[in-house]
């Protein structure tokens, strides 16, 4: 029986070790597919990028892609989730230690435009898909999305705390408006190729109007 238990033990060890190696390989495969998908979405747009091209760019079979992702929409959501998480971090870092609400908000906006400056086709695809009846709801409900409006809300709350804005500032509505205004400026960046400086100048004026009613002193 010694022999049997030894073999069982070996099996148990193998079960622990082998999946780890497999998991690692799987992660590498996923990363490769995601990188290829990001490149193709940026170059061809969402509709133009096919799973077959993505697989070819990643140097694997379409079967291998489908073993890791259920479909193209799944790939796109995965990319968006990691992007929005990274974006929220970039915005938060940019806003830290701002001296005024206006400066903080402007830094949040600018961090956003800067983040997408080199991948505007991806931003364009994200806008388009977020309005599509089939895929829009799933994209809008990605877990890191609310963090972006929350960042704006935080800036307003800091302003209230510092006495820069009045306590009765309709924070929720103003946050939404500021976020919408941030989003609404993307067409200029996407279609008209405005510079970051031009987008920033426009945003500053817009932020001033939205906050005009609640500024103190």
């Amino acid at each position: 029986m010694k022999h049997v238990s030894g073999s069982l033990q070996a099996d148990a060890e193998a079960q622990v070790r082998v999946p780890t190696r497999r998991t690692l390989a799987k992660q590498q495969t996923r990363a490769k597919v995601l990188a290829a998908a990001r490149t193709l979405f940026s170059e061809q747009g969402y509709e133009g990028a096919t799973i077959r091209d993505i697989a070819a760019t990643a140097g694997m079979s379409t079967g291998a892609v489908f073993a890791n992702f259920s479909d193209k929409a799944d790939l796109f959501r995965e990319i968006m989730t990691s992007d929005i998480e990274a974006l929220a971090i970039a915005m938060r870092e940019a806003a830290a230690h701002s001296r005024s609400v206006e400066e903080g908000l402007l830094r949040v906006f600018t961090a956003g435009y800067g983040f997408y400056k080199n991948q505007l086709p991806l931003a364009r695809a994200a806008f388009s898909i977020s309005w599509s009846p089939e895929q829009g709801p799933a994209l809008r409900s990605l877990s890191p999305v609310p963090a972006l409006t929350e960042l704006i809300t935080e800036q307003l709350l800091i302003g209230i705390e510092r006495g820069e804005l009045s306590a009765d500032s309709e924070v929720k509505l103003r946050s939404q408006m500021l976020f919408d205004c941030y989003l609404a400026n993307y067409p200029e960046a996407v279609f008209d190729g405005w510079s970051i400086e031009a987008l920033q100048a426009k945003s500053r004026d817009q932020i001033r109007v939205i906050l005009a009613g609640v500024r103190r002193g």
Partner: protein
Amino acid sequence: MTASQHPRRGGRLSQKDATRQRVLDAARELFEARGYEETPVREIARKAEVSVGSVFTTFASKGEILSRVMADRLDDLYAELDGVVPHLRGSTADRLRSMFAINYAFETQRTKLFLAHIAAAYDWTLGSEARAYGRTPRLLKIAHDCLAEGVTRGDVDPAVDLGMVVDLLVAAYAWTYRLAARDGADAATMSAVLDRQIGLIAEGFRPRSGPTVGET
């Protein structure tokens, strides 16, 4: 390189125009009856009695056909607004509220189609012609005229950049559509939200000193 920029003689141009119109008529009927996603270009071609190939020599994509169909629909709306806006009463904020409420009421007759139109406006394959969503020059002009009238009446600060305020108003108007996309909100619900937003924007454009005038 559109036909109108390079007019050719007689036959060819008018045939191209005729094809274009037939495709648009067929597309409008099918989009309204079935929906945008549910209508393949093949069906549009069949109904218009033209080949799929000639649909694509006239339009770059289905998204562009939708943009054109919607632009034509919106032309009707703007004609209506041109007649109504001069007669709107109240403060500039109130006149803007009424004007955008008319937009919502009109557009939500076909909410799904309008949302598809918004999505298509960001489509990768479309040219700048498709930027219709919330940015049609006529809508921008109507909003701008409303504000300019406010400057004359005295409840809009003459020092304010009106174009920038128009952009803000249109941003609020357009993105409030998320309520329709997400919760299926109707025109009245969206108007109620936009009314509050216009109120906040109005705080930013009213004259700096003295009481608000023009409220009577």
